[in-house]
C-alpha cells in the first residue's frame, strides 16, 4: 500500500466523494480526500500526489483556484482532472487555460473516471 500512487480528491458532495474514494481505492490507489479547495491545497502541499481530481465549484476556494495554486505557486506538473456540471463550459475552458489536464462532465461514470485515471498514471 505504501507504493500506492497518491491521488488528492476534492469534492464538496460528501456521498459522491465517498463513492469515488471507494472506487479508486479498489483499484489500488491511495486516496486523500478534501471537502473544499482549502483542504485540497493543504493535502497537495503536504503529500505531493501523483494526480489531482477536483470539482470546480467548492466552498472557500474553487477548483480553478486550486489549479492556479498548483501550477503557478507550487509549480507542480501533476495531472489535474476537473469535474464540471452542465452549463459550466466556460469555466472548463478557464480551467484548461490555467493548466487542467482533462475534464469530466457530471453526471459522470466512475468506471470512465477509473479508465482516465489509469491512463494518466500509466
Amino acid at each position, binding site marked *: 500500500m505504501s507504493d500506492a500512487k497518491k491521488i488528492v480528491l476534492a469534492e464538496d458532495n*460528501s456521498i459522491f466523494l465517498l463513492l469515488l474514494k471507494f472506487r479508486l481505492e479498489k483499484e489500488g490507489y491511495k486516496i486523500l480526500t478534501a471537502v473544499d479547495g482549502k483542504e485540497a491545497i493543504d493535502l497537495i502541499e503536504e503529500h505531493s500526489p501523483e494526480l489531482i481530481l477536483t470539482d470546480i465549484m467548492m466552498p472557500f476556494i474553487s477548483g480553478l483556484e486550486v489549479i492556479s495554486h498548483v501550477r503557478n505557486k507550487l509549480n507542480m506538473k501533476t495531472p489535474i482532472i476537473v469535474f464540471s456540471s452542465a452549463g459550466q463550459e466556460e469555466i472548463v475552458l478557464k480551467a484548461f487555460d490555467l493548466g487542467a489536464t482533462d475534464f469530466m462532465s457530471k453526471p459522470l461514470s466512475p468506471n470512465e473516471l477509473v479508465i482516465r485515471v489509469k491512463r494518466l498514471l500509466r
Partner: protein
Amino acid sequence: MNTNYFLIDYFNESPSIIQVAWSISVVFFIIIIPLILYLKFLRGHLRKKERVTAELENDYESSLINYLYSGNEEEEISAEQQVIINQLKECIKDPFRRKILIGVLLKLKNEISGEIAESIHKLYFHTGLVNFALSRLKHEKWFVIAKGIRELKQFHVKEAHDEVIVHINHPRREVRKEMQLYMVNLFYFEGLDFLDVLETPLSEWDQIQLLEVLQRMENQNISNIKSWLNSSNDSVIIFALKLAKIYNQFEAKDELINLLHHINKKIRLESIHVLSYLNALEAKEILKNNIEERSPEEQIAFFKMMEDLYEQTDESFVVKYIHHEIFEIKVSTLKILKVLNRERFNLLKFESSEPKFLRIVNFIENN
C-alpha cells in the same frame, strides 16, 4: 413588605405618563420573557434536528455506498444488498427519515451516470420509496401532489406515466408545471403529447422551462408539431410556434401560413416572425395582399420580413410605403429600396425636403 408598599405608593403618586411608561414596560417584560424562552427552545430543537439529520445522512450515505459496492454479477440483488434494503425499508416508515434518505439518494444520483445510477434507481424501487411517491399523487393537497411528481421525475420513474398525466389540467399551475416537466424530462419530444389535450394556459415561464429541457436532450428529432399549431389552446399554438422556429419546422409551413389569419393578434404576429425566419415566400405574397387591414405591429413585422425576402418585383409595392407614418416601416422600405434600385433611392434626397425623412435616408445610405 415595606418595599412593596413603597413601590405601590411611588406608582400611585407618579404622574400619569410615568404610570403609562411603567405599565408598558411591565407588559413588554411579560411578553419578552416567554418569547426568549421559546426562542431558546426553538434554537435547541433546530440544532438537535440538524445534528440528527447529519447523523442520519452519514448513516444512509454509508449504507448506500455499501449497497452499491456489495453487488455481484450473478444475482440481481446480493444477500448483503438485501440486508441493506430491509434496513432501509424499516427506516422509511418514518417520514422524517424517508425525506433524508431521498435527499441522500438524489445527492448521488445527480452526480453519477452508468451502472451506479441504475443501481440507485433499482434501490428506489426495492425499498418501496416509489410507492410513497405514487401515493402522494392521490393526496388532496396540491403541493403534496406536486412534490410527488417532482420526485418521480428526479428518479426517472417512467412507469408512473399514467398516474402523472391525470393531472394535466389540474387547477394549480404548480402541479401542471411539474407534470409537464416530468413528461418532457422522461419522454423527451414524445412527452410533449400532453399538448394535444392541454386545456389550461401554458405560461411563458412554463414554455421556457420546457424548451430548456428539450434543448438539453441528445435526441433532437422533434415529433410532428402540426396538430399543436391547430390547437384550440392559444398558448399551445404560441409554444408550437417557438418549436417551429427552434427546430426549423419548414414542413409545417401550410399550418403556419393558416395562422396568419388567426383570431389572436399575438399568434398572427408570431407566425409572421416564424415564417420570416423560415424564409417562406408564400407568406410574403399573402401578407402583401391584405397588409393594410392588419395591425401596426403586424405591418412592422411584415416589412421586417420583406427585408430578408424581397424580390425585384416588390419594388413598386415597397415604394408605396416609403413615406409611411410608422417609423419602422419607413426604415424597412428604404433599406429594401436601397438594394433594389439604388438610383431611385438616391433620388429621394432631392425629391423630399422633409428634414426627418432626409435624416433617415442619409442614415440608411451610410449604413
